[in-house]
Protein backbone atom coordinates (compact mmCIF):
# COMPACT_ATOMS: atom_id res chain seq x y z
CA UNK A 1 0.00 0.00 0.00
CA UNK A 2 2.90 2.35 0.59
CA UNK A 3 3.80 2.20 -3.08
CA UNK A 4 0.22 3.03 -3.98
CA UNK A 5 0.27 6.12 -1.79
CA UNK A 6 3.59 7.15 -3.33
CA UNK A 7 2.19 6.87 -6.82
CA UNK A 8 -0.77 8.99 -5.70
CA UNK A 9 1.57 11.58 -4.27
CA UNK A 10 3.67 11.61 -7.44
CA UNK A 11 0.51 12.27 -9.42
CA UNK A 12 -0.17 15.11 -7.01
CA UNK A 13 3.20 16.59 -7.84
CA UNK A 14 2.59 16.29 -11.58
CA UNK A 15 -0.82 17.91 -11.11
CA UNK A 16 0.88 20.83 -9.35
CA UNK A 17 3.07 21.40 -12.40
CA UNK A 18 0.14 21.21 -14.74
CA UNK A 19 -1.96 23.55 -12.60
CA UNK A 20 0.82 26.11 -12.49
CA UNK A 21 0.78 26.18 -16.28
CA UNK A 22 -2.92 25.72 -16.96
CA UNK A 23 -4.75 28.61 -18.52
CA UNK A 24 -8.02 26.88 -19.34
CA UNK A 25 -10.17 27.09 -16.23
CA UNK A 26 -12.12 23.95 -17.04
CA UNK A 27 -9.08 21.72 -17.27
CA UNK A 28 -7.66 23.38 -14.15
CA UNK A 29 -10.87 22.52 -12.28
CA UNK A 30 -10.51 18.93 -13.52
CA UNK A 31 -7.02 18.63 -12.10
CA UNK A 32 -8.14 20.13 -8.80
CA UNK A 33 -10.91 17.54 -8.73
CA UNK A 34 -8.32 14.82 -9.28
CA UNK A 35 -6.27 16.18 -6.39
CA UNK A 36 -9.38 16.29 -4.23
CA UNK A 37 -10.15 12.63 -4.91
CA UNK A 38 -6.58 11.63 -4.11
CA UNK A 39 -6.65 13.69 -0.90
CA UNK A 40 -9.81 11.90 0.14
CA UNK A 41 -8.46 8.41 -0.47
CA UNK A 42 -4.95 9.10 0.81
CA UNK A 43 -5.63 8.17 4.48
CA UNK A 44 -6.67 4.70 3.31
CA UNK A 45 -3.56 4.32 1.17
CA UNK A 46 -1.43 5.44 4.08
CA UNK A 47 -3.14 3.15 6.53
CA UNK A 48 -0.80 0.62 8.04
CA UNK A 49 -2.69 -2.42 6.78
CA UNK A 50 -0.11 -4.95 7.75
CA UNK A 51 -0.12 -4.08 11.44
CA UNK A 52 -3.46 -2.49 12.18
CA UNK A 53 -5.76 -4.54 9.99
CA UNK A 54 -8.74 -3.06 8.25
CA UNK A 55 -9.39 0.56 9.26
CA UNK A 56 -12.51 1.36 11.23
CA UNK A 57 -15.69 3.03 10.09
CA UNK A 58 -14.37 6.48 11.04
CA UNK A 59 -11.58 6.34 8.48
CA UNK A 60 -13.86 5.03 5.75
CA UNK A 61 -16.55 7.65 6.38
CA UNK A 62 -14.10 10.54 6.42
CA UNK A 63 -12.33 9.29 3.32
CA UNK A 64 -15.59 8.85 1.47
CA UNK A 65 -17.05 12.22 2.45
CA UNK A 66 -13.76 13.97 1.76
CA UNK A 67 -13.41 12.40 -1.67
CA UNK A 68 -17.01 13.17 -2.61
CA UNK A 69 -16.92 16.78 -1.43
CA UNK A 70 -13.45 17.71 -2.64
CA UNK A 71 -13.41 15.55 -5.73
CA UNK A 72 -16.97 15.89 -6.98
CA UNK A 73 -19.17 18.48 -5.28
CA UNK A 74 -16.77 21.42 -5.12
CA UNK A 75 -15.47 20.94 -8.68
CA UNK A 76 -19.05 20.79 -9.97
CA UNK A 77 -19.78 24.00 -8.09
CA UNK A 78 -16.72 25.64 -9.61
CA UNK A 79 -17.63 24.41 -13.08
CA UNK A 80 -21.02 26.02 -12.58
CA UNK A 81 -19.35 29.26 -11.51
CA UNK A 82 -17.03 29.12 -14.55
CA UNK A 83 -20.04 28.75 -16.80
CA UNK A 84 -22.07 31.43 -15.07
CA UNK A 85 -19.26 33.95 -14.93
CA UNK A 86 -18.45 33.27 -18.59
CA UNK A 87 -14.71 33.14 -18.04
CA UNK A 88 -12.97 30.41 -19.98
CA UNK A 89 -9.35 31.05 -19.44
CA UNK A 90 -6.83 33.09 -17.58
CA UNK A 91 -5.51 35.48 -20.21
CA UNK A 92 -2.95 37.78 -18.67
CA UNK A 93 -1.69 36.34 -15.42
CA UNK A 94 0.46 38.50 -13.18
CA UNK A 95 3.08 35.75 -13.09
CA UNK A 96 3.31 34.17 -16.53
CA UNK A 97 2.71 30.44 -16.90
CA UNK A 98 6.29 29.34 -17.66
CA UNK A 99 7.60 31.43 -14.79
CA UNK A 100 4.98 29.86 -12.52
CA UNK A 101 6.17 26.40 -13.49
CA UNK A 102 9.76 27.34 -12.79
CA UNK A 103 8.72 28.73 -9.41
CA UNK A 104 6.89 25.50 -8.58
CA UNK A 105 10.01 23.59 -9.60
CA UNK A 106 12.15 25.50 -7.13
CA UNK A 107 9.47 25.29 -4.46
CA UNK A 108 9.47 21.52 -4.93
CA UNK A 109 13.24 21.33 -4.55
CA UNK A 110 13.06 23.50 -1.44
CA UNK A 111 10.22 21.40 -0.06
CA UNK A 112 12.17 18.19 -0.52
CA UNK A 113 15.17 19.65 1.24
CA UNK A 114 12.96 20.84 4.11
CA UNK A 115 11.23 17.47 4.24
CA UNK A 116 14.63 15.83 4.45
CA UNK A 117 15.64 18.06 7.35
CA UNK A 118 12.42 17.74 9.30
CA UNK A 119 12.08 13.94 9.39
CA UNK A 120 8.49 13.22 10.20
CA UNK A 121 8.39 10.64 12.93
CA UNK A 122 5.44 8.60 11.86
CA UNK A 123 5.30 4.91 11.35
CA UNK A 124 3.60 4.36 8.02
CA UNK A 125 3.44 7.81 6.47
CA UNK A 126 5.28 8.11 3.22
CA UNK A 127 8.46 10.13 3.30
CA UNK A 128 7.18 11.96 0.24
CA UNK A 129 4.07 13.32 1.85
CA UNK A 130 5.53 16.35 3.61
CA UNK A 131 7.43 17.68 0.57
CA UNK A 132 4.44 17.10 -1.68
CA UNK A 133 2.19 18.87 0.82
CA UNK A 134 4.51 21.87 0.96
CA UNK A 135 4.84 22.01 -2.83
CA UNK A 136 1.07 21.89 -3.19
CA UNK A 137 0.63 24.67 -0.66
CA UNK A 138 3.18 26.74 -2.56
CA UNK A 139 1.33 26.12 -5.82
CA UNK A 140 -1.92 27.19 -4.21
CA UNK A 141 -0.41 30.41 -2.92
CA UNK A 142 1.13 31.08 -6.31
CA UNK A 143 -2.24 30.73 -7.98
CA UNK A 144 -3.83 33.07 -5.45
CA UNK A 145 -1.17 35.74 -5.78
CA UNK A 146 -0.16 35.34 -9.39
CA UNK A 147 -3.49 35.20 -11.18
CA UNK A 148 -6.13 37.77 -11.89
CA UNK A 149 -9.34 35.84 -12.35
CA UNK A 150 -11.41 35.46 -9.22
CA UNK A 151 -12.12 31.80 -10.01
CA UNK A 152 -8.45 30.95 -10.33
CA UNK A 153 -7.90 32.43 -6.91
CA UNK A 154 -10.64 30.22 -5.50
CA UNK A 155 -8.93 27.26 -7.18
CA UNK A 156 -5.67 28.34 -5.61
CA UNK A 157 -7.34 28.34 -2.23
CA UNK A 158 -8.62 24.81 -2.79
CA UNK A 159 -5.14 23.66 -3.81
CA UNK A 160 -3.72 25.24 -0.67
CA UNK A 161 -6.34 23.43 1.38
CA UNK A 162 -5.51 20.15 -0.40
CA UNK A 163 -1.86 20.62 0.45
CA UNK A 164 -2.72 21.12 4.12
CA UNK A 165 -4.89 17.99 4.08
CA UNK A 166 -2.01 15.99 2.61
CA UNK A 167 0.15 17.28 5.41
CA UNK A 168 -2.47 16.19 7.93
CA UNK A 169 -2.51 12.74 6.36
CA UNK A 170 1.27 12.65 6.37
CA UNK A 171 1.70 13.21 10.07
CA UNK A 172 -1.19 10.83 10.79
CA UNK A 173 -3.12 13.39 12.73
CA UNK A 174 -6.45 12.30 14.12
CA UNK A 175 -8.84 14.93 15.29
CA UNK A 176 -11.95 12.86 15.54
CA UNK A 177 -14.82 12.76 13.17
CA UNK A 178 -16.60 15.97 14.24
CA UNK A 179 -13.61 18.18 13.66
CA UNK A 180 -12.82 16.59 10.31
CA UNK A 181 -16.35 17.02 9.11
CA UNK A 182 -16.36 20.55 10.55
CA UNK A 183 -13.25 21.45 8.58
CA UNK A 184 -14.80 19.99 5.48
CA UNK A 185 -18.03 21.89 6.06
CA UNK A 186 -16.10 25.12 6.46
CA UNK A 187 -14.19 24.58 3.24
CA UNK A 188 -17.39 23.68 1.44
CA UNK A 189 -19.25 26.74 2.72
CA UNK A 190 -16.31 28.96 1.92
CA UNK A 191 -16.10 27.78 -1.67
CA UNK A 192 -19.86 28.14 -1.93
CA UNK A 193 -19.79 31.75 -0.74
CA UNK A 194 -16.76 32.52 -2.89
CA UNK A 195 -18.62 31.05 -5.86
CA UNK A 196 -21.57 33.34 -5.22
CA UNK A 197 -19.18 36.25 -4.83
CA UNK A 198 -17.54 35.41 -8.16
CA UNK A 199 -20.94 35.41 -9.79
CA UNK A 200 -21.85 38.77 -8.24
CA UNK A 201 -18.49 40.26 -9.17
CA UNK A 202 -18.89 39.15 -12.77
CA UNK A 203 -22.36 40.70 -12.84
CA UNK A 204 -21.47 43.96 -11.11
CA UNK A 205 -18.09 44.60 -12.70
CA UNK A 206 -18.70 42.92 -16.09
CA UNK A 207 -15.47 41.01 -15.54
CA UNK A 208 -13.94 38.57 -13.11
CA UNK A 209 -10.53 40.21 -13.07
CA UNK A 210 -9.70 40.95 -9.49
CA UNK A 211 -7.53 43.88 -10.48
CA UNK A 212 -10.80 45.68 -11.07
CA UNK A 213 -11.27 45.37 -7.32
CA UNK A 214 -8.92 48.22 -6.55
CA UNK A 215 -11.23 51.03 -5.61
CA UNK A 216 -10.88 50.90 -1.86
CA UNK A 217 -7.72 52.31 -0.40
CA UNK A 218 -6.34 55.03 1.77
CA UNK A 219 -6.46 57.78 -0.80
CA UNK A 220 -9.61 57.28 -2.79
CA UNK A 221 -11.69 59.86 -0.93
CA UNK A 222 -9.22 62.57 -1.89
CA UNK A 223 -10.47 62.76 -5.45
CA UNK A 224 -13.52 64.96 -5.54
CA UNK A 225 -15.45 62.93 -8.11
CA UNK A 226 -15.40 59.92 -5.86
CA UNK A 227 -17.35 61.64 -3.17
CA UNK A 228 -20.50 61.24 -5.15
CA UNK A 229 -19.94 57.52 -5.52
CA UNK A 230 -20.13 57.14 -1.80
CA UNK A 231 -23.61 58.42 -1.34
CA UNK A 232 -24.87 55.06 -0.22
CA UNK A 233 -25.33 54.48 3.47
Amino acid sequence: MITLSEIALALFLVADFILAGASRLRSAVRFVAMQGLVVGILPIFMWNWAEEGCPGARVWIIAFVNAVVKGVVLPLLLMYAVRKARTRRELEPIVSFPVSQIIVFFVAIGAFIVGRLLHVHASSASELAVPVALTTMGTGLLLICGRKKAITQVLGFLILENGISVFGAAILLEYGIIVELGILLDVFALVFILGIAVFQISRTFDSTDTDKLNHLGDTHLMHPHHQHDHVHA
Partner: protein
Amino acid sequence: MNILSVILAVILAPLFLGIVNQTKAFFGGRRGPGYLRLYKDLFKLVRKSCPRPMPSTWIFDIAQSVSLASVIAASIVFPWSGVGIGSSIVPAVLFFYILAAGRFFTVIGALDAGNAFEGMGASREMQFSTLAEPIVFVILGLLVMLNGDVSLTSVLAGVSSETWRESIVALILVFGAFYAVFLLENCRVPFDDPETHLELTMIHEAMLLDVGGVDLAFALYGAALKFELLAAFLVTMFVPQLSNPYLHLSVIFGGVALISILTGVVESIMARVRFFKTPQMLLGALLMASLAVFFIACF
Protein backbone atom coordinates in the same frame (compact mmCIF):
# COMPACT_ATOMS: atom_id res chain seq x y z
CA MET B 1 18.39 -13.40 -33.18
CA ASN B 2 19.38 -9.73 -33.40
CA ILE B 3 18.82 -9.54 -37.13
CA LEU B 4 15.60 -11.45 -36.77
CA SER B 5 14.26 -9.06 -34.17
CA VAL B 6 15.17 -6.03 -36.27
CA ILE B 7 13.33 -7.53 -39.22
CA LEU B 8 10.35 -8.26 -37.02
CA ALA B 9 10.35 -4.66 -35.74
CA VAL B 10 10.53 -3.33 -39.30
CA ILE B 11 7.62 -5.48 -40.37
CA LEU B 12 5.41 -4.80 -37.35
CA ALA B 13 5.84 -0.99 -37.35
CA PRO B 14 2.65 0.01 -39.24
CA LEU B 15 0.56 -2.24 -37.00
CA PHE B 16 1.05 -0.02 -33.94
CA LEU B 17 -0.29 3.07 -35.67
CA GLY B 18 -3.27 0.89 -36.54
CA ILE B 19 -3.71 0.17 -32.83
CA VAL B 20 -3.67 3.91 -32.07
CA ASN B 21 -6.30 4.57 -34.70
CA GLN B 22 -8.48 1.69 -33.58
CA THR B 23 -8.34 2.94 -29.98
CA LYS B 24 -9.39 6.38 -31.13
CA ALA B 25 -12.17 4.87 -33.18
CA PHE B 26 -13.32 2.86 -30.17
CA PHE B 27 -13.54 6.03 -28.03
CA GLY B 28 -15.21 7.92 -30.83
CA GLY B 29 -17.79 5.18 -31.26
CA ARG B 30 -16.67 4.39 -34.82
CA ARG B 31 -15.72 1.11 -36.43
CA GLY B 32 -12.32 2.43 -37.46
CA PRO B 33 -10.13 1.81 -40.48
CA GLY B 34 -8.82 -1.52 -39.23
CA TYR B 35 -5.46 -2.54 -37.79
CA LEU B 36 -3.87 -3.19 -41.16
CA ARG B 37 -4.94 0.00 -42.89
CA LEU B 38 -1.44 1.46 -43.14
CA TYR B 39 -0.13 -1.69 -44.87
CA LYS B 40 -2.81 -1.29 -47.51
CA ASP B 41 -2.05 2.42 -47.91
CA LEU B 42 1.63 1.74 -48.28
CA PHE B 43 0.95 -1.00 -50.82
CA LYS B 44 -1.24 1.40 -52.80
CA LEU B 45 1.32 4.22 -52.66
CA VAL B 46 4.37 2.23 -53.79
CA ARG B 47 2.65 1.47 -57.09
CA LYS B 48 2.31 5.18 -57.88
CA SER B 49 4.93 7.40 -59.43
CA CYS B 50 6.25 10.36 -57.51
CA PRO B 51 5.78 13.75 -59.14
CA ARG B 52 8.21 16.50 -58.34
CA PRO B 53 7.35 20.19 -57.85
CA MET B 54 8.72 22.61 -60.44
CA PRO B 55 11.41 24.54 -58.56
CA SER B 56 12.79 21.64 -56.57
CA THR B 57 16.17 19.99 -57.05
CA TRP B 58 17.69 16.57 -56.39
CA ILE B 59 17.53 17.28 -52.67
CA PHE B 60 13.78 16.87 -52.81
CA ASP B 61 14.23 13.49 -54.52
CA ILE B 62 16.50 11.98 -51.94
CA ALA B 63 15.03 13.63 -48.82
CA GLN B 64 12.39 11.03 -47.93
CA SER B 65 14.61 8.08 -48.75
CA VAL B 66 17.48 9.35 -46.61
CA SER B 67 15.11 10.15 -43.80
CA LEU B 68 13.66 6.63 -43.85
CA ALA B 69 17.14 5.18 -44.07
CA SER B 70 18.18 7.00 -40.92
CA VAL B 71 15.20 5.68 -38.98
CA ILE B 72 16.00 2.16 -40.15
CA ALA B 73 19.62 2.67 -39.17
CA ALA B 74 18.52 3.75 -35.70
CA SER B 75 16.27 0.72 -35.39
CA ILE B 76 19.14 -1.57 -36.39
CA VAL B 77 21.35 -0.39 -33.52
CA PHE B 78 18.47 -0.49 -31.06
CA PRO B 79 18.74 -3.44 -28.65
CA TRP B 80 15.39 -5.07 -29.39
CA SER B 81 16.19 -8.35 -27.75
CA GLY B 82 18.47 -7.15 -24.97
CA VAL B 83 21.59 -6.69 -27.11
CA GLY B 84 21.42 -5.00 -30.46
CA ILE B 85 23.81 -4.96 -33.37
CA GLY B 86 26.62 -2.78 -32.10
CA SER B 87 24.47 -1.24 -29.42
CA SER B 88 27.14 -1.78 -26.80
CA ILE B 89 29.53 0.57 -28.58
CA VAL B 90 27.01 3.09 -29.91
CA PRO B 91 26.49 5.93 -27.43
CA ALA B 92 22.89 6.73 -26.67
CA VAL B 93 23.42 10.27 -27.90
CA LEU B 94 24.34 8.94 -31.33
CA PHE B 95 21.03 7.08 -31.47
CA PHE B 96 19.15 10.34 -31.11
CA TYR B 97 21.41 12.10 -33.58
CA ILE B 98 20.76 9.45 -36.23
CA LEU B 99 17.08 10.26 -35.81
CA ALA B 100 17.88 14.00 -35.93
CA ALA B 101 19.73 13.48 -39.22
CA GLY B 102 16.57 11.99 -40.66
CA ARG B 103 14.63 15.03 -39.51
CA PHE B 104 17.22 17.29 -41.10
CA PHE B 105 16.63 15.71 -44.48
CA THR B 106 12.87 15.92 -44.17
CA VAL B 107 13.23 19.60 -43.36
CA ILE B 108 15.56 20.52 -46.20
CA GLY B 109 13.39 18.48 -48.53
CA ALA B 110 10.42 20.57 -47.44
CA LEU B 111 12.36 23.80 -47.91
CA ASP B 112 13.50 22.67 -51.34
CA ALA B 113 9.94 22.28 -52.54
CA GLY B 114 9.58 26.06 -52.38
CA ASN B 115 6.08 25.97 -50.94
CA ALA B 116 5.24 28.57 -48.26
CA PHE B 117 3.27 26.10 -46.16
CA GLU B 118 6.06 23.58 -46.24
CA GLY B 119 8.54 26.22 -45.16
CA MET B 120 6.27 27.12 -42.27
CA GLY B 121 5.94 23.47 -41.24
CA ALA B 122 9.71 23.04 -41.42
CA SER B 123 10.27 26.05 -39.21
CA ARG B 124 7.85 24.79 -36.59
CA GLU B 125 9.27 21.29 -36.66
CA MET B 126 12.75 22.61 -36.03
CA GLN B 127 11.61 24.97 -33.30
CA PHE B 128 9.83 22.29 -31.30
CA SER B 129 12.47 19.64 -31.73
CA THR B 130 15.05 22.12 -30.49
CA LEU B 131 12.95 22.58 -27.39
CA ALA B 132 12.59 18.82 -26.94
CA GLU B 133 16.32 18.21 -27.07
CA PRO B 134 17.16 19.44 -23.54
CA ILE B 135 14.55 17.07 -22.13
CA VAL B 136 16.14 14.13 -23.95
CA PHE B 137 19.54 15.13 -22.65
CA VAL B 138 18.38 15.49 -19.06
CA ILE B 139 16.76 12.08 -19.21
CA LEU B 140 19.81 10.50 -20.83
CA GLY B 141 21.95 12.07 -18.14
CA LEU B 142 19.70 10.55 -15.52
CA LEU B 143 19.94 7.10 -17.12
CA VAL B 144 23.70 7.37 -17.37
CA MET B 145 23.76 8.33 -13.71
CA LEU B 146 21.72 5.25 -12.83
CA ASN B 147 23.48 2.76 -15.08
CA GLY B 148 26.99 4.11 -15.21
CA ASP B 149 27.85 4.06 -18.90
CA VAL B 150 26.92 6.05 -22.01
CA SER B 151 26.46 3.17 -24.45
CA LEU B 152 22.99 2.41 -25.67
CA THR B 153 22.94 -1.04 -24.09
CA SER B 154 23.80 0.11 -20.61
CA VAL B 155 21.61 3.22 -20.79
CA LEU B 156 18.73 0.93 -21.67
CA ALA B 157 19.79 -1.77 -19.23
CA GLY B 158 16.61 -1.09 -17.36
CA VAL B 159 15.84 0.11 -13.92
CA SER B 160 16.66 -2.25 -11.11
CA SER B 161 13.92 -3.23 -8.73
CA GLU B 162 15.80 -1.43 -5.98
CA THR B 163 15.55 1.87 -7.83
CA TRP B 164 11.90 1.14 -8.44
CA ARG B 165 11.30 0.88 -4.74
CA GLU B 166 13.33 3.86 -3.71
CA SER B 167 12.57 6.47 -6.32
CA ILE B 168 9.25 5.65 -7.84
CA VAL B 169 8.38 9.34 -7.96
CA ALA B 170 11.44 10.15 -10.03
CA LEU B 171 10.57 7.32 -12.42
CA ILE B 172 7.00 8.57 -12.80
CA LEU B 173 8.31 12.05 -13.54
CA VAL B 174 10.78 10.66 -16.09
CA PHE B 175 8.05 8.65 -17.73
CA GLY B 176 5.85 11.75 -17.99
CA ALA B 177 8.67 13.87 -19.42
CA PHE B 178 9.80 11.27 -21.96
CA TYR B 179 6.23 10.58 -22.96
CA ALA B 180 5.87 14.28 -23.78
CA VAL B 181 8.97 14.04 -25.97
CA PHE B 182 7.60 10.88 -27.53
CA LEU B 183 4.34 12.62 -28.46
CA LEU B 184 6.18 15.63 -29.83
CA GLU B 185 8.68 13.65 -31.91
CA ASN B 186 5.90 11.60 -33.41
CA CYS B 187 3.74 14.65 -34.05
CA ARG B 188 0.81 13.40 -32.00
CA VAL B 189 -1.86 15.29 -30.13
CA PRO B 190 -1.52 17.53 -28.07
CA PHE B 191 1.47 18.94 -29.96
CA ASP B 192 0.48 18.22 -33.52
CA ASP B 193 -2.51 16.56 -35.08
CA PRO B 194 -1.68 13.92 -37.71
CA GLU B 195 -5.23 14.12 -39.04
CA THR B 196 -5.57 17.84 -39.43
CA HIS B 197 -6.69 19.01 -42.84
CA LEU B 198 -5.86 22.68 -42.43
CA GLU B 199 -2.42 23.64 -43.67
CA LEU B 200 -2.13 26.50 -41.20
CA THR B 201 -2.39 24.19 -38.22
CA MET B 202 -0.09 21.47 -39.54
CA ILE B 203 3.43 20.90 -38.39
CA HIS B 204 4.78 17.64 -39.65
CA GLU B 205 2.15 17.02 -42.29
CA ALA B 206 2.78 20.46 -43.78
CA MET B 207 6.21 19.30 -44.85
CA LEU B 208 4.75 16.45 -46.88
CA LEU B 209 2.24 18.46 -48.90
CA ASP B 210 4.11 18.03 -52.19
CA VAL B 211 5.31 14.50 -51.55
CA GLY B 212 3.53 11.69 -53.35
CA GLY B 213 3.81 8.11 -54.47
CA VAL B 214 6.74 6.06 -53.23
CA ASP B 215 8.21 9.04 -51.38
CA LEU B 216 4.99 9.48 -49.44
CA ALA B 217 5.01 5.76 -48.66
CA PHE B 218 8.57 6.17 -47.35
CA ALA B 219 7.52 9.15 -45.22
CA LEU B 220 4.48 7.38 -43.76
CA TYR B 221 6.40 4.22 -43.09
CA GLY B 222 9.28 6.18 -41.55
CA ALA B 223 6.82 7.87 -39.19
CA ALA B 224 5.38 4.50 -38.16
CA LEU B 225 8.83 3.05 -37.55
CA LYS B 226 9.89 6.06 -35.51
CA PHE B 227 6.76 5.74 -33.41
CA GLU B 228 7.58 2.12 -32.69
CA LEU B 229 11.24 2.87 -32.04
CA LEU B 230 10.66 5.65 -29.51
CA ALA B 231 7.89 3.71 -27.78
CA ALA B 232 10.28 0.78 -27.48
CA PHE B 233 12.90 3.15 -26.07
CA LEU B 234 10.41 4.31 -23.46
CA VAL B 235 9.54 0.74 -22.52
CA THR B 236 13.15 -0.49 -22.42
CA MET B 237 14.08 2.38 -20.14
CA PHE B 238 11.92 0.96 -17.39
CA VAL B 239 11.78 -2.78 -17.93
CA PRO B 240 14.71 -4.65 -16.36
CA GLN B 241 16.82 -6.69 -18.78
CA LEU B 242 15.51 -10.20 -19.17
CA SER B 243 17.85 -13.12 -19.75
CA ASN B 244 15.68 -14.78 -22.39
CA PRO B 245 15.88 -12.66 -25.58
CA TYR B 246 12.55 -13.95 -26.95
CA LEU B 247 10.82 -13.01 -23.73
CA HIS B 248 12.52 -9.62 -23.77
CA LEU B 249 11.41 -9.01 -27.31
CA SER B 250 7.82 -9.93 -26.60
CA VAL B 251 7.77 -7.79 -23.45
CA ILE B 252 8.97 -4.83 -25.50
CA PHE B 253 6.39 -5.34 -28.21
CA GLY B 254 3.70 -5.76 -25.57
CA GLY B 255 4.82 -2.50 -23.97
CA VAL B 256 4.80 -0.74 -27.32
CA ALA B 257 1.25 -1.96 -27.90
CA LEU B 258 0.24 -0.63 -24.46
CA ILE B 259 1.81 2.75 -25.25
CA SER B 260 -0.06 2.79 -28.56
CA ILE B 261 -3.29 2.26 -26.67
CA LEU B 262 -2.32 4.96 -24.16
CA THR B 263 -1.61 7.33 -27.03
CA GLY B 264 -4.98 6.55 -28.55
CA VAL B 265 -6.65 7.31 -25.22
CA VAL B 266 -4.70 10.56 -24.81
CA GLU B 267 -5.65 11.64 -28.30
CA SER B 268 -9.29 10.87 -27.61
CA ILE B 269 -9.56 12.85 -24.39
CA MET B 270 -7.28 15.76 -25.15
CA ALA B 271 -7.61 18.60 -27.57
CA ARG B 272 -4.57 19.84 -29.34
CA VAL B 273 -2.98 22.85 -27.63
CA ARG B 274 -2.30 26.18 -29.28
CA PHE B 275 1.13 26.65 -30.79
CA PHE B 276 2.39 29.11 -28.26
CA LYS B 277 1.43 26.76 -25.43
CA THR B 278 3.73 24.06 -26.79
CA PRO B 279 6.99 25.59 -25.51
CA GLN B 280 5.37 25.95 -22.11
CA MET B 281 4.35 22.29 -22.00
CA LEU B 282 7.86 21.29 -23.01
CA LEU B 283 9.21 23.52 -20.28
CA GLY B 284 6.98 21.67 -17.81
CA ALA B 285 8.34 18.35 -19.07
CA LEU B 286 11.90 19.64 -18.75
CA LEU B 287 11.24 20.75 -15.18
CA MET B 288 9.76 17.38 -14.30
CA ALA B 289 12.80 15.61 -15.74
CA SER B 290 15.12 17.93 -13.82
CA LEU B 291 13.20 17.28 -10.64
CA ALA B 292 13.65 13.56 -11.23
CA VAL B 293 17.41 14.08 -11.62
CA PHE B 294 17.37 16.04 -8.39
CA PHE B 295 15.60 13.22 -6.56
CA ILE B 296 17.92 10.53 -7.84
CA ALA B 297 21.00 12.64 -7.16
CA CYS B 298 20.07 13.70 -3.66
CA PHE B 299 18.10 10.82 -2.20
